């Protein structure tokens, strides 16, 4: 379904303009990192792409093989939220929930769910209630739940914002495994270290505008916008 094309996208909520005319073309392949300070509009942009929000103006066009109605498009994408909502049921049932909605039979869903739980290292917790798992485990479960659907595109909204370094490392390993399996990764972060570790290309957002869309090396070596330059400089002492 890629490339994904954003045409003059704007989004206004409660009189505040959050996205101010973003145009971009996101190709299949490279891991795209949407980088920017808090409040820049990263999460909103991602929700627009995923179809959870409707743009105030502009268009979101999915090109490629599955091109068609937006209802269809949802089946080929998945999203992991900064604070994933765990249903009040077992870890296994949480993963099976999305699979059953996608039309899988109970036994198919269970098989697939156990597979992905194994990959994210939660197989031994399959029967435990999802809500009693630790924050890191819940985030891994959220990744498993999204990955199980076999999406073409996986959106990740600050997937490690609330996690300790060890859990963050687990999550980043899993994200790379998902990337290696052929799923397009589009994620937001405000963490430069993470952008460097996980990104192939950077979309730098500041104040609702797309300031740069460049390969990772060029972004860090030679940012073209003053905003990006100061963001990189400002953040480096804490790396």
């Amino acid at each position: 379904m890629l490339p994904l094309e954003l045409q003059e996208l704007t989004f206004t909520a409660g009189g505040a303009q959050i996205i101010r005319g973003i145009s971009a073309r996101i190709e299949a392949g490279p891991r795209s990192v949407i980088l920017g300070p808090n409040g820049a509009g990263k999460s909103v942009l991602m929700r627009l792409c995923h179809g959870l929000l409707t743009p105030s103006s502009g268009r979101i066009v999915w090109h490629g093989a599955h091109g068609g109605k937006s209802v269809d498009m949802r089946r080929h994408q998945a999203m992991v939220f900064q604070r994933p909502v765990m249903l009040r049921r077992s870890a296994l049932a949480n993963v099976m929930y999305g699979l059953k909605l996608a039309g899988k039979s109970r036994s198919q869903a269970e098989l697939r769910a156990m597979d992905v739980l194994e990959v994210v290292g939660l197989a031994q917790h399959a029967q435990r209630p999802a809500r009693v798992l630790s924050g890191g485990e819940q985030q891994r479960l959220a990744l498993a739940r999204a990955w199980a659907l076999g999406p073409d595109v996986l959106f990740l909204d600050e997937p490690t914002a609330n996690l300790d370094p060890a859990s963050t490392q687990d999550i980043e390993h899993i994200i790379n495994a998902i990337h290696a399996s052929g799923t397009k990764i589009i994620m937001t972060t405000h963490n430069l270290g993470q952008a460097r570790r996980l990104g192939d290309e950077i979309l730098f957002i500041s104040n609702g505008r797309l300031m740069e869309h460049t390969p990772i090396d060029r972004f860090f070596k030679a940012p073209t916008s003053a905003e990006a330059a100061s963001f990189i400089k400002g953040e480096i002492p804490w790396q």
Partner: protein
Amino acid sequence: MNSLGEAFTAAWRLIAGFDAELAQVVGLSLQVSLTAVVIATLIGLPVGAMIAVERFRGRQALIVLLNALMGLPPVVVGLLVYLLLSRAGPLGSLGILFTPTAMVIAQAILITPIIAALSRQTLEDAWREYDEQLRSLGARRITAGMTLIWDTRFSLLTIVLAGFGRAVAEVGAVMIVGGNIDGVTRVMTTAIALETSKGDLPLALGLGIVLLTLVIVLNALAAVIREMALRRYG
């Protein structure tokens, strides 16, 4: 003071001995209020769920109205149902005034707003939390609604128990539409009112003790269920 002590002793004797009259009254109370709470849940829960997830004109006004109706005075409900069911009323031909059916109707009207308003609040809070996640996973509206109800089932059960507690302890509505007919429409609350005014304190007290115990047990049950659910499902 002495007569009060005697009344207590006599009340205990009635309860311990499964007095037939007392058992009959308690049984009818439970039957009427349980039926009413089932009907109120079947109506109130979907209404609450609908208001929780749908956006429509007049929604806010409806919520205010529902919340206000939670405080419906039972005697007023009794009066309205009486007018509806009385011989000259629009539903008089049914001939169900002064029957347990009329009492069920009155209590159901009384507690449907309670169940609708409280479940609306519970489900709306959950919806705010679940909305994006469920849509992202591909859930359509009806599926999402069912998931919400299932995930909040323990809170909802507490709400239903609260509704039952209100119904079973209510006296004004059943008195008016039931008529407190001995052996036919006499329930715990109306019997207490009558026996007290007659001066038959042991039966009134016995019923009072049963009623109080029932209400306490219900609330304890609700607390235990919540606690268990919280521990098991987080």
